[in-house]
């Protein structure tokens, strides 16, 4: 599997290059399995994200690394040392909490100095390190203020400074941008990435926002229902998802249930439910003939037949009826329905001449040979079609 290989390639190196190692970690609350067999490592200075919908176990995993929860089974290693049962105050990690949890009765300076003073760092050094850190988060003039005198974005930076000033082995961030508005969130995403590069500390970032994870992360662990579905770089996760869930959770994906017909080298021929056949790259995997898998085509790779293909080689085509055409600025979101009843979405550019396909008209959609990807897991026929987080959100 793709994710297993990536995880191993990172974990394999020198042991000191691994900051955090989760060794078969499972967490149960009564009968409820919050995290099931989490087994991965996080490298030094890596920006690692845990991404998934609410209730997928990402926050529980983070809280186990922080020490607020104890694994039911398995081990957590921090810098090679087993910390599974170590209380939070003895762990060399610091957390940026979702609600910031700044101490309301202390000045900003005292908030940031809190960890250093607890560690009995000399007062003069506390002063220089706190002021340095306030420079890093670009709020040097706020030292004497109280937390409630700061805006949400400023409090966010102070929470970051309060954690980072201790030079932890890893910084844990629990949906830290969730409470900010979109504009500020985008600014803070870039800020976080800059600060992470500047201080070189391992960041473990929990979010349900796939765009946020793609923007900042070196690697992403996509989680659902307590399991880690895939770990990989943003590119790997987007282009070669290992499960239909990952495909739909990261961006928008058109998913079709297909059956493997034959394989020759790297080319796999699959058959759709409508009887059409096409050839897809197997990306190093061997498929048995007759196995049920899922064909994924991203909306930007789905184009009207006859239009220039976004990619090399010819794939296959599918006939469908246009059900909606929505102008979204850079692209036109074109939704079509196949005769099997699956809804597909294509993002058409001006070169595709979207105006020539009125709603209700029939059109032929196609994709290039490398514009499609085989997800090595089956999908139920009624789940066929377009899936994306946006759809989930409107449904919920």
């Amino acid at each position, binding site marked *: 599997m793709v994710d297993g290989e990536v995880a191993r390639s990172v974990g394999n190196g020198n042991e000191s290059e691994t900051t955090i190692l989760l060794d078969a970690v499972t967490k149960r609350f009564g009968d409820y399995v919050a995290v099931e067999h989490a087994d991965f490592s996080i490298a030094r200075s890596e920006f690692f994200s845990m991404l998934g919908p609410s209730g997928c176990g990402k926050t529980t995993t983070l809280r186990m690394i922080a020490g607020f929860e104890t694994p039911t089974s398995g081990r957590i290693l921090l810098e090679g040392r087993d910390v599974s049962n170590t209380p*939070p105050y003895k762990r060399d990690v610091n957390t940026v909490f979702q609600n910031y949890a700044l101490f309301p009765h202390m000045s900003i300076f005292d908030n940031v100095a809190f960890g250093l003073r607890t560690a009995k760092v000399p007062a003069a050094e506390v002063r220089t390190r706190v002021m340095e850190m306030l420079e890093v988060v670009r709020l040097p003039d706020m030292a004497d203020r109280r937390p409630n005198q700061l805006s949400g974005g400023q409090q966010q930076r102070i929470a970051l400074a309060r954690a980072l000033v201790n030079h932890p082995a890893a910084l844990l961030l629990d949906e830290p941008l969730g409470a900010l508005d979109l504009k500020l969130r985008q600014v803070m995403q870039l800020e976080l990435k800059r600060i992470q590069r500047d201080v070189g500390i391992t960041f473990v970032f929990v979010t349900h926002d796939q765009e946020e994870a793609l923007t900042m992360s070196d690697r992403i662990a996509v989680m659902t229902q307590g399991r880690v579905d895939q770990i990989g770089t943003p590119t790997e996760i987007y282009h070669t998802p290992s499960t239909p869930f990952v495909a739909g959770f990261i961006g928008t994906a058109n998913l079709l249930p297909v059956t493997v017909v034959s394989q020759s080298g790297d080319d796999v021929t699959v058959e759709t439910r409508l009887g059409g056949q096409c050839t897809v790259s197997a990306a190093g995997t061997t498929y048995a003939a007759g196995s049920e898998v899922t064909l994924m085509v991203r909306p930007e790779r789905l184009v009207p037949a006859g239009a220039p293909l976004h990619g090399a080689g010819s794939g296959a085509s599918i006939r469908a009826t246009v059900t909606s055409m929505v102008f979204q600025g850079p692209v036109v979101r074109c939704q079509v329905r196949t005769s099997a009843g699956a809804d597909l979405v294509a993002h058409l550019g001006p070169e595709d001449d979207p105006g020539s396909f009125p709603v209700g008209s029939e059109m032929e959609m196609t994709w290039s040979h490398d514009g499609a990807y085989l997800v090595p897991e089956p999908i139920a026929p009624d789940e066929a079609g377009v899936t994306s987080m946006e759809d989930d959100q409107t449904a919920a």
Partner: protein
Amino acid sequence: MAAATTDDTGLRRGRFAPYGLLSPGIIWLLVFFLVPVVMLVRASLSTKPSRFAEPVFSWDFSNYGSALSEYSDEFIRSFLYAGTATVLAILIGYPLAYWIATCGGRWKNFLIGLVVVPFFTSYLIRTIAWTSILQDDGVVTGLYRLLPWVGSDGRILATPMAVIGGLTYNFISFMILPIYVSLEKIDFRLTEAAADLGCTPWRAFRKVVLPLSLPGIFAGSLLVFIPAAGDYLNARYLGSPQTSMIGTVVQNKFLVQFDYPQAAALSLVLMVIITVLVLIYSKFLGTEGLAV
């Protein structure tokens, strides 16, 4: 024009609304606080020609002199007992309030209800009930006599211990409720943040929870100390002549000896001393405690 007029009255009504809302309180304070205080000051500066004669206003400051010289023991005892009862109420009430606020879960309101339940019985009856609990041949005193340093004739009733115990018991709810309210408001994720920053649970409590609950301790202390310092029922029923407090004296002067001038002077001295103590206390705890 019409619109402008309505706007104008609306504005005027808006401007006077705060005073309208305040007026019941102001009238109440005028009638039941300011007027009595003025009458008390007047009485304290009066003289009584004979026991049953009406007091005559005469700028007589000697009442204050004798208040301080003759009753200094009672004053000292009052503040000592009230202070001890306040400290005991904090020591007993804080852990209880903390436990209810953190572990009470869905039983919180029920548990706080239990704290208030004693108020359903009259203060006087509860105090008198203590006399039978602490009586010399009772179980409590019997157990007390088993202590190695207490003789077989040791007593609880009619000792300072009984008076302080009674004061603590009678006023402890006034300590628990404000502390509970201030603890309830604390976001306990802050203690997680403190633990994350290296604090042991005890240090997290001292650095985060305790400072944030100071307003509750402050309010509770005032609510216990002030009535306890002026109390006479506990000293009267649970104590002895050797444990009399200033309230006992005032009650005796007013209702038994009809010595209004002396009683008024004693009351005013008590009021001034309490005010000064409260001001010192609020300085010590930080005035911010009142604002939060």
